[in-house]
């Protein structure tokens, strides 16, 4: 196989080459789903949560704001009004679908979800022991869910890869919650975010990996 210089490649095969900068320059190509936090939107390629592929949220503590971070986006996807909007144009992420919680650490509290504007009647809670990656994959592949949240820590890189593939192919927002330590290992996820909190500063969001974007740190406050 003859060697090809980088210049050749850049000039002759622009379509087959992925360029981080180009993606940032043309955000309209894959516009994300706004997080609801302007400071965070600015740091993400596509100005929001990626609509396809796995999002990893790394955190060691419950309750520091890991759900608050997602709530504005989830409310837009899973509100009772979302059904009417969904029919108008075919969105990249299914709206008005279900919201699946796969093996959450506690019970998602229905009155609080309703207060955020989420249609509680379309929430599905799965408490599975073992095979939770499988359950998350099923929820993603079913095409019934607007968003799938999973508290799963796949030890096997293959399982993680399968989840990422399922997330890539589905039209759901796929979020995986893992402990901070998992951030040391490589992951095929599109976006990896580490959360930390402190009593004074509030929630600090550190973008560890972002396809098409750059690592950054955002302080969201209380």
């Amino acid at each position, binding site marked *: 196989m003859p060697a090809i210089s980088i210049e050749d490649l850049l000039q002759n095969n622009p379509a087959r080459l992925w360029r981080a900068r180009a993606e940032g320059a043309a955000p309209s190509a894959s516009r994300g789903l706004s997080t609801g936090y302007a400071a965070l939107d600015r740091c993400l390629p596509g100005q929001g949560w990626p609509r396809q592929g796995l999002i990893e949220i790394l955190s060691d*503590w*419950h*309750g*520091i*704001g*890991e*759900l*608050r971070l997602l*709530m504005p986006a989830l409310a837009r996807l899973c509100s009772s009004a979302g*059904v009417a909007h*969904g*029919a108008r144009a*075919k969105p990249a992420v*299914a*709206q*008005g*679908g*279900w919201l699946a919680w796969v093996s*959450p*650490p*506690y*019970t*998602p*509290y*229905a*009155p*609080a*979800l*309703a*207060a*955020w504007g989420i249609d*509680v*009647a*379309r*929430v*599905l*809670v*799965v*408490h*599975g*022991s073992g*095979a939770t990656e*499988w*359950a998350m994959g*099923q*929820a993603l592949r*079913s*095409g*019934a*869910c*607007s968003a799938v949240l999973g508290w799963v820590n796949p030890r096997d890189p293959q399982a993680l890869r399968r989840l990422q593939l399922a997330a890539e192919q589905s039209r759901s927002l796929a979020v995986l919650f893992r402990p901070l330590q998992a951030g040391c290992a490589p992951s095929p996820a599109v976006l990896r975010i580490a959360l*930390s*909190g*402190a*009593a004074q*500063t*509030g*929630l600090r969001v550190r973008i560890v990996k972002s396809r098409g974007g750059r690592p950054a740190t955002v302080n969201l406050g*209380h």
Partner: protein
Amino acid sequence: MAPLAQRRVAPALRSSPAVPGPTVVVRSRSRELWLAVHLPSLLLDALRDQTSALSGRVHLAVVDLERDGKVVRACDAAAQTAGVRAGMSVNSALALAPGLQTLARDVGRERQLLEAVACQGLRFTPRVSIEPPDGVLLEVRGSLRLFGGARQLCRRVQQEVAETAGATVRFAVTPTPLASSWFARLNVDERAVLVRGREELPGRLAPLPLACTRWPERTLRTLATMGVRTVGECLRLPRDGFARRFGADLLAMLDCATGRIAEPRTAFAVHEKFALRRDLEPEVVDTGRLQVVLQLMVDDLCRFLRERSRGIQTLEIQLHHREAPTTRVRLRFVQPVGAQPRRIVELLRERLARFGLAEPVRNIRLVSGPLLDLPADAPELFAHDRRESGVHVPQLVERLRARFGNAAVHGLACVAEHRPEAAWRAVEPLGSPLPLAKIACDAGDGHRPLWLLDVPELCEAGDLEFEEGPECIESGWWDGHDVARDYYVARNRHGARLWVFRNRRSADAPGWFLHGWFA
């Protein structure tokens, strides 16, 4: 003429006015037409397997053993010529026909036979009703044109019924179910009695002997002593006097028969199930081959469902072994499932994948639950919208439940309650919403955490920084789980916001409890 006045003037039973009383406007084309199928030899037909074995003996009688008297209920033609009649005691019958073979009556089999006839009736009309003990009624007004008129229809029904029940079937077609039954019971001919208009009914019913009504023996005797032997004579009696002497029920029956008042009939519905058994010639050891066999059986099941356009919600697979007890696998669907082989097979595969067979399987039985109506399918107009609004959710729920169990997968609902732990409930996904849910969600009492602990945990309040509170929640004295708590929103050193409470009453556990996270 004023019938009421006349009734007062002439109190004698025989005098007019007739029972139909004030003339009602009867339309010549009434809306219903009932075909009565009467099976005169039902008692004998129900025991056909026994009677065919005794074909050499000609004198047969069915005996009611439940009663003390041992009464002959029915007998064959040979016994009848010997003088045996229904209602006779067995001893009298034996005296008349010494070679009489008696058979015990089987009410269950009779009912089965009637239901089989009713099932066949469903091929001609959806409105079928059973008239125990020996009749079936079909409402055929709408079917006449399709089957080429009443006579033609009767011929078709006769052919069908002759296959299941006996050869003797009697028909009558009239506008009221009761009149049809009466005519059919007395009909000795193969041809159906036909009365098309309701206004003809009183006249046509008049010559019928009262025995066709099957009223109690005593009533019939009393009427006979009064010289009333036919329906017509009965109709001529004064209404109020008749009701007083014989009860309002019998008067109502006369009214039903003549079509003065409507007679609601309970519709016959088929209670079908699917059951299939397949023997495995070489016994099956692995689940892989089992699936291949099951796939074929599911195809049969789906054909069965498609023909009936019905669905099932439960399905049981029984694996029979040589020694070990039968293995039963039960599948439960969230919604009735019609002829969707892929959906059923997928769920089966999920269940069988983690299934260790105790012993080789000798045969498989597939038994469905009751057949249910399928949920109406929306037309394809909003197909795109439909895909998003949860058509795939039932399949997802079934698949997850097949693996984790029923309780592991649930939906959520708000409940109008002040106690935090009672303000939500795990519900069936896709179930009907709780009635008070809307109010509860709108009430929005205070700031609520996104995570709720199932059981409040004792926690250290030392390093907590209190932000809001107290919110006092005191409720639930009526069900024994009453609480009296002061709730606070606090922040710990990791920046997490907690929902903590302290019991207000000294009798309850002291200290601070963590009840939720404002995640």
